[in-house]
């Protein structure tokens, strides 16, 4: 789960990582409880590149805060609408450095990266400006790694990187992070430091035992729709194109992604990604009915395609659940086309035929049927 910068900073502060005082604002009433200025108004989305997208602005008066907030809220950047801004005190009189800790999958460890410059994309820095090493996944090992890397810098920056890095090591391990990047890390001449920006990615798989992150998710489910949905419903659902015309009821992450790619390649507009986990429905319609309701919320959805390759799932049982779920989700008014392969196909054919749902074993034939509905012609 990619945390909003505001949540990232709140979480980091619990591990004694210094962050500028700031407040999350979701409307234009910014009058109360702001830290002293001047300020920086930062649009909150779960993606990088915010500066380039024009949703980070400096402000010296309360009026400017309101103007910037007004301009930033509601903008859509990288397919995400900006619903909140963080109004934060500007940091003055400091130079910039870079530090990040991330999971290194190939090395089965934690990679520490540092640079004496910050504020820009780390990949834009020359290779010899970057120090990097992998540590074993323990606080002690990461701290030793941080100290060794920091020692190759000088003066205030060496002291600041070593101190910030040790605190980040604790935060990283305790919160079961995937990535924490502080860029820039503001460093003052006396070696004190403060985190200018924070990118924090946590492990969705650990959410059930990470109370702090789970509380953040529950407090702001709109900002983390995919993670919230997975935690609550046990399946993965992503609206990939809010204007999409084709709803998808699919299982398996890889096959579902590939289907979306192939649909787009032939000019169709899929609305959603879904890994419904058909093997884990356990004879209940609740998850399917929820999914059908979500798909029905797509304003331009004209048809729904079911694509299941049943390695293990019993298709007769799945089809019975599907037909019941459709009756529980009358919101879904669009025609349904099914493509099923695997265990229990004859039983599925009987159930779907009785429900008037056309069934194909060949994906290309199912898509030909789907296209009839998209072009507006009834078959």
């Amino acid at each position, binding site marked *: 789960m990619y945390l909003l910068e505001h949540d990232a900073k709140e979480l980091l502060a619990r591990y004694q990582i210094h962050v500028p005082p700031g407040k999350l604002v979701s409307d234009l009433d910014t009058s109360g409880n702001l830290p002293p200025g001047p300020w920086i108004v930062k649009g909150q989305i779960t993606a990088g590149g915010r500066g380039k997208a024009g949703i980070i602005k400096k402000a010296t008066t309360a009026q400017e805060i309101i103007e910037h907030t007004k301009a930033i809220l509601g903008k859509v950047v990288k397919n995400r609408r900006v619903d909140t801004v963080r109004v934060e005190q500007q940091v003055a009189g400091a130079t910039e450095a870079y530090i990040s800790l991330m999971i290194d*999958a190939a090395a089965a460890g934690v990679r520490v990266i540092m640079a004496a410059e910050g504020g820009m994309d780390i990949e834009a820095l020359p290779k010899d400006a970057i120090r990097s090493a992998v540590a074993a996944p323990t606080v002690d090992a990461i701290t030793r790694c941080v100290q060794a890397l920091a020692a190759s810098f000088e003066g205030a920056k060496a002291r600041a990187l070593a101190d910030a890095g040790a605190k980040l090591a604790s935060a990283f391990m305790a919160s079961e992070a995937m990535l924490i990047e502080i860029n820039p890390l503001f460093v003052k001449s006396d070696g004190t430091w403060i985190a200018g920006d924070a990118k924090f990615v946590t492990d969705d798989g650990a959410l059930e035992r990470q109370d702090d992150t789970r509380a953040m998710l529950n407090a702001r489910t709109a900002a983390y729709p995919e993670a919230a949905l997975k935690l609550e419903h046990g399946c993965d659902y*992503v609206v990939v194109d809010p204007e999409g015309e084709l709803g998808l009821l699919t299982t398996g992450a890889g096959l579902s992604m590939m289907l979306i790619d192939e649909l787009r390649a032939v000019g169709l507009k899929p609305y959603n990604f879904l890994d419904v986990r058909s093997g884990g429905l356990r004879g209940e319609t609740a998850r399917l009915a929820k999914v059908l309701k979500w798909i029905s919320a797509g304003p331009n959805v004209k048809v729904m395609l079911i694509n299941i390759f049943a390695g*293990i799932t019993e298709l007769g049982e799945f089809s019975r659940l599907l037909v019941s779920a459709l009756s529980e989700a009358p919101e879904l008014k669009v025609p349904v086309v099914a493509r099923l392969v695997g265990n229990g196909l004859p039983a599925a054919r009987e159930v779907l035929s009785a429900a008037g749902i056309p069934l194909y074993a060949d994906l290309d034939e199912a898509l030909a049927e789907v296209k009839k509905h998209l072009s507006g012609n009834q078959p």
Partner: protein
Amino acid sequence: MINPRLTKNTPVIIQGISGRAGRLHSRLMKEYGTNLVAGISSRKAVSEINGVPLFTDCATAVKATGATTSVALVGAFDLLAAIEEALAAGIRYIVTPTEGMPVHDALKAKRAVDAAGAIWVGASTPGMAIAGEVKLGFLPSDSLIPGPVGLMSKSGTLSYESGYRLAQRGMGTSVWIGVGGDAVKGVRYADLVPFYAQDEQTQALLIIGEIGGHEEEDFAAACIAHKFSKPVFALIAGRSAPEGVTMGHAGALVHGSHGTWNAKRLALEAAGATVFGSLNEMVDGVIRRLK
């Protein structure tokens, strides 16, 4: 070299055999011909499940049966302990289909497996199989016929569909390894390049990949480093996935220019691989080249 060429005689235990997945898949594996010698269940109330004798712990089961291999079908938060228990009992091959293993647990598991010199396939793996001999995990038998294609996949479903469509056209697989969709895992594509290079039954490799991470890129580098000379085909899912969103698999996440479809395509093509844009193109391409 990692050698995944198990046989129908390889003695296999199932950790968590009394759970829902354990009961179903121990039956399916046994029907395929896998030599299941023991099931582990701490709540041992009966003496066998699907004709497989039960033990309360790995060490006793390994001592009694000489098992070398385990399939662990336990919950995500119990998986690290299950792997540690299997290693301590002397198990050499561990296959873990469980989805959702916490990443920090996977880091610890990977280090423990490496320290023991064992081989771990997973987590979040659909399983592995030597077609016609042995299957460990969930791979559907309809997709599994013996043939010349070495198959490695992050995804279960996309590999089932690929294997099925190839099998329908008479094209089978040699050694099929589901490396799994997690970011931190046991065996990775690159680890298996030396094995496939010398495996006589394997005439070509099919990589079924996904956006996120850099495993496909590492695989491409390993092909170049080992001068891998058999044809390599690749199908990569997630070309049109939005940035910063996890697409079902924990590892399928694009950040900025990292892990993108295009970066993977370029790396694979530079290593001489053919990257296909769709399942149909992949199946046609593999058949044309190998028939």
